[in-house]
């Protein structure tokens, strides 16, 4: 046990806890209600998107408040190819991911070439997302502002190839993606690219002086983050079966997407997952409150309050603190 733990680079406690968590998650659809499963699907979407965003901000220190752009580009590409050419979503991904990565490279490339960083870069990402939102409102081929709708077929059978099926199917799919993202980010963080990203985040000038081509590595972070995000975009399109530019590219979506990693722990591996769980679960209970009290806006207010508290009081996020408390932390890092 200890040897396996050491091989994987975690504490024995963390190994046991992780295995336990995995077992529970794998078995969940068998013993939980369909409502819980669909809430968990939301958690996993939020977790995965948060992990993708975390690569740009948590690792490389690039603040993107227009990440919904990549979700939307992936979603619309996959949906449009399905609606117009009956192409299955996995083919749609093959088109959508490069499109999102290209968008990221354009935004990143232009910004970094012109030395636009920090808050100005964040504003640029917002501008690009908004620009695209309005553009798509007028893009008739994909429905424009009236929306794009995917034909919903028989949900009784699970069709993974066409992404038609029960919430449970999406649950396992997203669980696999979250696990894959966790493995990928962990792998990258321990390699040269991970250290170079962190160096760029901590001090770009010092990084440059140590021979790091900051332009190339920043671009890599943006491209990877965008591509990963687009994958979730495609899946989301097939889960909800409707798309509107006003929601797909909305700044509200971008902010929502950022909340999980910020609350969970910027730059940590498990933070976005933990943050997604906490926020979604509490958010769902807020929805109940909203329905009971018939007041709009309680959920957003709650989001704002949590964000405020975390950024002000615990900017490192909740996960490092929880991990330390649970004794899962490995030396100094709560990975």
């Amino acid at each position, binding site marked *: 046990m200890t040897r396996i733990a050491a091989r994987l680079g975690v504490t024995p406690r963390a190994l046991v806890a992780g295995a336990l968590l995995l077992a529970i998650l794998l078995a969940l659809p068998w013993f939980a209600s369909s409502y819980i499963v669909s809430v968990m699907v939301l958690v996993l979407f939020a977790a995965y998107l948060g992990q993708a965003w975390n690569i740009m901000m948590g690792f490389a220190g690039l*603040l993107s*408040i227009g990440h919904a752009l990549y979700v939307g580009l992936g979603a619309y590409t996959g949906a449009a190819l399905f609606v117009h050419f009956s192409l299955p979503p996995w083919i749609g991904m093959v088109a959508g991911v490069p499109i999102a990565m290209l968008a990221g490279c354009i935004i990143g490339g*232009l*910004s970094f070439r*012109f030395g*636009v960083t*920090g*808050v*100005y870069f*964040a*504003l*640029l990402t*917002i*501008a*690009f997302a*908004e*620009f695209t939102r*309005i*553009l798509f*409102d*007028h893009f008739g081929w994909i429905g424009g502002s009236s929306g794009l709708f995917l034909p919903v077929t028989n949900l009784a059978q699970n069709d993974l190839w066409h992404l038609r099926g029960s919430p449970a199917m999406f649950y396992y799919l997203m669980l696999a993606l979250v696990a894959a993202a966790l493995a990928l980010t962990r792998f990258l963080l321990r390699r040269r690219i991970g250290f170079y990203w962190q160096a760029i985040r901590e001090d770009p000038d010092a990084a440059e002086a140590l021979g790091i081509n900051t332009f190339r590595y920043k671009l890599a972070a943006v491209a990877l983050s965008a591509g990963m995000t687009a994958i979730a975009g495609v899946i989301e399109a097939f889960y909800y079966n409707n798309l509107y530019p006003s929601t797909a590219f909305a*700044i509200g979506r971008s*902010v929502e997407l950022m909340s999980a990693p*910020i609350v969970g722990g910027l730059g940590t591996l498990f933070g976005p997952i933990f943050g997604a769980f906490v926020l979604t679960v509490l958010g769902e209970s807020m929805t109940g409150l909203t329905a009971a009290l018939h*007041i*709009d*806006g*309680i*959920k*957003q*207010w709650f*989001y*704002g*309050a949590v*964000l*405020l508290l975390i*950024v*002000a009081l615990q*900017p490192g996020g909740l996960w490092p603190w929880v991990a330390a408390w649970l004794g899962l932390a490995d030396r100094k890092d709560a990975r």
Partner: protein
Amino acid sequence: MLVLNILIAGILTGAVYGLMALGLSVIFGVIRVVNFAHGEMMVAGMYVAIVLNQRAGIDPLAALPFIAALLFAFGYALQRGLINRFIARPEYNQFLLLLAVSILLTSSTLMVFGPDARNVQLDYAFDSFEFHGLLLDKVRVLAALGAAIGVAGLWAFFSLTRTGKAIRACADNQLGAQIVGLDVKRLYAATFGIGAACVGAAGSLLLLLVDVQPYIGADFTLLGFIIVILGGLGSMPGALLGGVLVGVSEALAGFFIDPSLKSMFSFALLILVLLVRPQGLLGRTA
């Protein structure tokens, strides 16, 4: 002639935009904080004006001083109580803090007033002046006039009063200001308050021209950024110039192209300016 009318309308509206953006510029120029809650603060002020109008029949122009004072207090408290504590943190931290505040403001107005659009009932809403063959909306002229007075008042404050000069000293050299004994914390709070008051005043004026809804705050925050970046962060005349430019381009774009595309044009402009000349047309390089 029609184009000229539209041009003038754009300039007049742009003056109000300019006043709104001025607040943003002042806050950034002095405190170096990007106020992401700018538009949302304005919307909150607009709702107060609506309530005064609907309950007590007060014209937004009359309510303006009160709204400005209210928002001054809010801004002062916000800076003093919250943002000041995190001045030393990396800049994205303050950005996220204000983002959270903006979410709280929007959701609060949503919770209290509901999602439907509201506007003020004005007797003179459809009046217009005629001037050498040009048709000028009375509301637009009044709004622009109000904006001009606001800007003049601000300029006078910064040039002539002691506090105003002290604030400018802080902006130029924070350490030096502290050394000569200026209470930087209080001056920062006052600056934020002034920026908020600007936006409150702009909101009252804007109420003459548009309907208000909880979600338009974000649009105006972004508009504020476009103007301020165009004109130069920290430059007062730049904010005005930017405001007028945006007002005119929106009006012209709305006339010549599809009105719903006009924001797209503004965003494209923002992207261009951020890339090519981030210090804006009139700003100084950092």
